[in-house]
């Protein structure tokens, strides 16, 4: 569930990043091809179910717009408090020229009035900029703000519905990079003459920059600047509050637990979020691997376990009962705390709130204003989805 989304969100789909060796993309791009191959292998070796038909769903890398493209940082944010550097595109009147996160240059003759968002994060950003009335299409995973759910769905798990897109006659499509919106779909739309802006952030800073980029594309530059500065203030406050506590407990941010335990990869976006929230992240020991063995967990002995999959039914009692977990400090101390993964991982306007929620999960005593829209998770032992 969450896991798959998260994996897809790593790495950046540009040619530049492809050529940079340590980027996670190579490993990721492979991982799906590899899964398909493996399934085919399984078919060869006697498992009937893996007939040639089976790998198809894997090979096509379907988009899951459940959570939005959570950026994965390979560069730790150094100065979050500083104002995000303005986009490289100079402020200009219409027509405007923009360079998206994949380096594609697009032209906008006038402020777009019919906008399609292909990721829940983009949808949130457009609404937060006050341009929600200009959205004519979204994904079937849009859940925030509530009115977003009513948008016609033009992207589902299996891909972009091109006929629906064409029928809406958009003048701007906001896609998500790194194959969250399949690269083939982006190309297909561009071949049709549709203007597509691809957004993909790898760090908290880049999330802020993307908000400004979308604001610029919509002609809402001022609202974007205001939102960014508000978020920066909130992030700074969280950092200050956790720094005041002084302790940095070892934190396992559990991304998922079925079938294996999934934790942040080394230097990933989530690892940085945990760091910003005042914890010492336990990572998988590799920049590309997301699963972590229970052996490693036992050896690293987390002091706090944050349940990023609490919204999907995973709760502290179950975690504590897992074989081998009872000796961990976090389990003994009862420091297993649920968090709403959407705000923590979705690179949208609520990211600062997500950071606050994460910081409170790590340091419940910290002087941080609780996020406004905190979900009640694991109230009765088991969360409702």
């Amino acid at each position, binding site marked *: 569930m969450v896991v798959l989304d998260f994996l897809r969100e790593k790495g950046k789909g540009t040619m530049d990043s492809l050529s940079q060796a340590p980027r996670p993309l190579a490993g990721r791009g492979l991982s799906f091809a590899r899964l398909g191959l493996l399934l085919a292998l399984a078919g060869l070796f006697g498992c009937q179910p893996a007939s040639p038909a*089976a790998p*198809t769903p894997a090979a096509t890398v379907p988009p899951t717009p459940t959570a939005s493209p959570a950026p994965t940082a390979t560069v730790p944010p150094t100065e979050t408090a500083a104002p995000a550097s303005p986009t490289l595109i100079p402020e200009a009147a219409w027509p405007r020229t923009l360079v998206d996160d994949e380096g594609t240059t697009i032209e906008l003759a006038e402020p777009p009035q019919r906008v399609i968002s292909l990721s829940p994060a983009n949808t949130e950003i457009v609404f937060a900029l006050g341009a929600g009335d200009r959205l004519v299409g979204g994904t079937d995973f849009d859940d925030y703000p509530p009115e977003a759910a009513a948008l016609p769905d033009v992207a589902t*798990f299996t891909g972009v519905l091109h006929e629906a897109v064409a029928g809406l006659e958009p003048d701007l499509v906001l896609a998500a990079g790194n194959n969250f919106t399949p690269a083939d779909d982006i190309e297909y739309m561009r071949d049709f003459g549709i203007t597509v802006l691809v957004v993909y952030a790898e760090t908290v800073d880049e999330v802020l920059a993307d908000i400004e980029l979308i604001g610029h594309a919509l002609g809402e530059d001022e609202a974007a600047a205001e939102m960014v500065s508000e978020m920066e203030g909130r992030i700074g406050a969280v950092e200050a509050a956790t720094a005041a506590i002084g302790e940095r407990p070892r934190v396992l941010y559990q991304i998922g637990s079925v079938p294996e335990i999934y934790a942040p990869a080394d230097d990933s976006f989530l690892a940085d979020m945990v760091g910003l929230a005042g914890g010492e992240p336990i990572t998988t020991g590799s920049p590309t691997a997301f699963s972590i063995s229970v052996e490693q967990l036992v050896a690293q002995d987390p002091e706090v376990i944050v349940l990023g999959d609490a919204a999907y039914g995973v709760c502290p009692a179950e975690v504590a009962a897992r074989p081998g977990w009872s000796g961990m400090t976090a389990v003994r101390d009862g420091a297993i705390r649920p968090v709403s993964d959407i705000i923590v991982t979705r690179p949208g306007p609520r990211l600062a709130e997500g950071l606050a929620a994460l910081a409170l999960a790590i340091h419940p005593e910290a002087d941080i204003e609780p996020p406004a829209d905190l979900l009640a998770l694991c109230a009765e032992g088991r969360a409702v989805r």
Partner: protein
Amino acid sequence: MSTRVAGRVDAARPTVALLPASRRPVALALTGLLALATALVLGVALGNVAVPVADTLALLAHRLLGWPVSVTWPASAETIIVELRLPRVLTAMAVGVALALAGATFQGLLRNPLADPYVLGTASGAALGAALAMLLPIQVALLGFGLMHLLAFGGALLAVAVVYRLSRLGELNSLTSVLLTGYAVGSLLAAGLAMTMYLSGSHLRQIFFYLLGSFSLSSWQQLLVGLPVILLGCLVILGRARSLNALLLGEETAAHLGLNVRRERLVLLGAATLITGAAVAMSGLIGFVGLVVPHLVRLVVGPNARLLLPLSALFGASFLAFADLVARMPGELPVGIVTAVIGAPFFLYLLRRYRAGYAL
């Protein structure tokens, strides 16, 4: 005329010497036991967290044998060894026994060297069951088994039951029709699986994980539930070595040798399916063990089920324990890949080396 006389005279005295010495089953058994012991020790000692060998041995002696050893290891080492690695190694061994025995049984029952534990649809049934379980909004937890395990187990049994009914295996008739029915039912279930996977959305990875097999989720609880089922099925099969021997020359000859073919076939098929289902529920779909191990053993000791079955069980256990060890060294690979990567080339090597005397 002279031969006749000689024959009579010789028949009167012990003539066992005429038969060549058996094909070294004792040596093979000792090798297997050694391999099993090595797999046990290495499987417990090695992992992706280093625990000193001295600590490992002292810990095992302390916990398993009750030796009064002073505790010099950290608590985490004890958790890792006793709660994580030991059940994992033992589960791998139990599953190895089950798959190897089931493979040998299906090969003998169907008189087909290419048969494996999954040949009659167990794999497809289990996979579909597991995949469906992920789509169902029901949570079940029963003694360490979730809905997925239960549906996988049920799916395996159900698939074979359907094949059995459809091919009317109950009567003496062509084994080809059984295999073809198994193939057809398997294909249908595979289509169901593909469809389920297509609809499964974000559960896809979970289904993949299951299809490739793994022991990373083993626990004492699961082992204690699964082991009795596997033991029961294995004992039933081991006790029917004579029936499998009689079936070597086909069902009609087996009947002429006094076998109740219909009953024996049902019992053997049921037991083999039961242990396959249990194995599949515990660890997902692990290929190649059930195909390769019986062939390997047959190569050395011949097709006599009295040797083939116990030795296959022994080598199935150590093979899978080693494969799991390899699988967890680089992180966590699906063990099904390891069994294939080790098993296939080894199998080819054996075929080439022995092709003079051993043709499939």
